[in-house]
């Protein structure tokens, strides 16, 4: 099936009544959760997963994708209005968006953000549509060693690109992998670390980890910040209208950063947050008047907004075509696929074209919906920011508990949710990044399987990973991605010592 035919299939899914409805639900829920400061896309996706039980996979996944890019779209609103980014991907949005809002141009800032997001998202879907099938057809020949190396590279990339200490990020990744070894080993039937507890035989469901490490831990942070301001009723948004000059000014950054964001989204480990920062710095470097950045520059707002949305669709490339998530958020997306019995990967495009193309086609539609939602309706949607924090906290706790209970009907899992919530909170306090943990947890089982398959093929010799060029080069990239930041840090430390 060629891309055009595929896309037609996709639009049949996306433009059916069911498809339109679930895209709309997805983007609205995503926007609303994304707007809440402190609640990120991972929590948004994890909270929505129980709703999809028993649904048809195609509309369910179309909805989940909508939740994801909707959350990135919606995160900008609280960045601009409250200077409290809804998600980490919109931190850079606040740099110029909040100053604009303070100058009484909140409406204009929201409009710029919405249009930039729309263009970034749409450009990126076109690129996704072109790249994902190509990558799928290449990846179909990948054997277990290549898959193992790819996943290994994904983990090292996310560790070295995480904020803060690389060592801590690697510890988080190893810990996530360790948690997945708990339970009955699927290949030999050995009980590992279960201590004879029946509840642990199947291991931990990923939803317990996702909701605990993210939603519950984020709730703890919300509790600490519960007295922060929420939107006051008298805050005026101002006009949403943009002048021709405004549009002209944003056209440059938007067209450049849509591509930059997409590329960074495709690469493992990066994603919306890093893309938005890189795009911001990129535009500031090449700007004629960089001193305007940080004081309400249109360019400084348009750049991260187009980039983070482009990165979001870009992140679907490895997820859909390789079946390997490159970030914490896409790891949870993969979980959503697996819950519905869909295995993304090179076979998805041929085996389940309605899902593969349905998701891609629905993104065109979703971006249009988001533009409509975020332009005329934004003053009403923003009202959700005035929801009292204590109430929000209680409700998010409830959503998490219901979500976990509805997967297993087992109270033991609820206690485990508390345990992982406490772990997630501790990780946040002591600056251990959580995305490597969840990515390793999701990839861990697949990695172990790929590793053992490779070793079975090679009769127990590790040389299988270095004998063929593809696994070898991937492992080398992984090694470099760990060593380069370590070397840079070591050098800057040495320089610092010398200066003292």
């Amino acid at each position, binding site marked *: 099936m060629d891309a055009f035919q595929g896309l037609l299939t996709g639009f049949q899914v996306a433009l059916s009544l069911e498809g339109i409805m679930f895209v709309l639900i997805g983007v609205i829920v995503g926007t609303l959760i994304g707007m809440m400061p402190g609640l990120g896309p991972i929590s948004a996706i994890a909270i929505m997963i129980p709703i999809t039980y028993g649904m048809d996979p195609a509309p369910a996944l179309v909805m989940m994708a909508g939740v994801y890019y909707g959350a990135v779209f919606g995160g900008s609103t609280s960045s601009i209005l409250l200077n409290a980014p809804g998600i980490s991907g919109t931190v850079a949005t606040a740099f110029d968006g909040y100053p604009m809002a303070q100058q009484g141009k909140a409406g204009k800032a929201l409009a710029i953000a919405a249009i930039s997001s729309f263009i970034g998202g749409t450009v990126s879907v076109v690129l996704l549509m072109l790249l994902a099938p190509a990558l799928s057809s290449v990846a179909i020949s990948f054997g277990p060693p290549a898959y193992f190396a790819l996943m290994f590279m994904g983990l090292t990339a996310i560790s070295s690109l995480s904020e803060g200490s690389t060592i801590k990020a690697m510890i988080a990744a190893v810990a996530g992998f*360790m948690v997945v070894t708990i339970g009955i080993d699927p290949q030999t039937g050995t009980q590992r670390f279960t201590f004879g507890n029946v509840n642990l035989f199947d291991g931990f469901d990923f939803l317990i980890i996702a909701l605990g490490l993210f939603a519950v831990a984020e709730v703890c942070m919300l509790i600490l910040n519960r007295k922060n301001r929420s939107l006051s009723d008298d805050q005026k948004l101002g006009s949403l209208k943009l002048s021709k000059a405004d549009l002209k000014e944003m056209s440059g950054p938007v067209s450049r950063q849509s591509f930059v964001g997409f590329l960074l989204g495709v690469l493992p480990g990066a994603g919306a947050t890093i893309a938005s920062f890189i795009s911001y710095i990129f535009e500031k470097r090449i700007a004629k008047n960089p001193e305007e950045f940080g004081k309400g520059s249109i360019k400084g707002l348009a750049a991260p907004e187009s980039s983070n949305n482009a990165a979001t669709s870009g992140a679907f490339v490895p997820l859909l075509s390789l079946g390997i998530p490159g970030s914490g958020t896409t790891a949870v997306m993969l979980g959503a696929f697996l819950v519905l019995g869909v295995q993304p990967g090179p076979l998805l495009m041929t085996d389940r074209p309605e899902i593969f193309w349905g998701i891609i086609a629905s993104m065109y539609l979703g971006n249009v919906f988001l533009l409509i939602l975020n332009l005329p309706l934004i003053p009403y949607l923003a009202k959700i920011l005035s929801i009292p924090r*204590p109430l929000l906290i209680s409700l998010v706790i409830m959503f998490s508990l219901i979500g976990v209970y509805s997967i297993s009907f087992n109270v033991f899992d609820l206690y485990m949710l508390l345990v992982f919530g406490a772990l997630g909170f501790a990780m946040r306090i002591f600056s251990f990044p959580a995305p490597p943990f969840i990515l390793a947890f999701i990839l861990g089982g697949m990695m172990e399987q790929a590793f*053992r398959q490779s070793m079975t093929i090679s009769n127990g010799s590790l040389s299988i990973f270095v004998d063929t060029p593809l696994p070898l080069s991937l492992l080398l990239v992984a090694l470099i991605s760990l060593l380069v930041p370590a070397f840079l*840090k070591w050098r800057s430390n040495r320089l610092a010592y010398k200066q003292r």
Partner: protein
Amino acid sequence: MLASINRKLGLLIFIVAAVYLYLSFQLPNYEYAPIDADVIPKGLGILLLVLSVFLFFSRVVETDAEKAKRNIPKKELGVIAAVFAMIFVYILLFEAIGFIITTALFIFFCSWFLGYRAWKTNILVSLLFPIVMYAIFVFALGIVLPRGILPF
């Protein structure tokens, strides 16, 4: 010697890694599996052990932002502990008393405890949320939540 926070964390993680590694050496072996169930856990245990040593000896100085994040007033930690205790009690009673009643009580008291004083809205939300969720899950999604002592 344990002056910096990285040293304390490093030591803690070292202990966790050592326990994990000890347990992975207890895993049974089968002769004919080329890669047995204990290989990956042993590898992970050793990796974590090494990383914890790195963390222990790392000279990276904590940034002010990281320090501020760690510096939480005791009272606030108490608030979080209290919320966790409430969740614990909720889980304890959830199946016996039923979803609607426990959830309503939890939302009301948790919101109240965290400083929400508009009690009329609070009661309204506490009642509507569990009823709507119950209806969605049980009747629309077919996911059964504990009925408890209520008749429906």
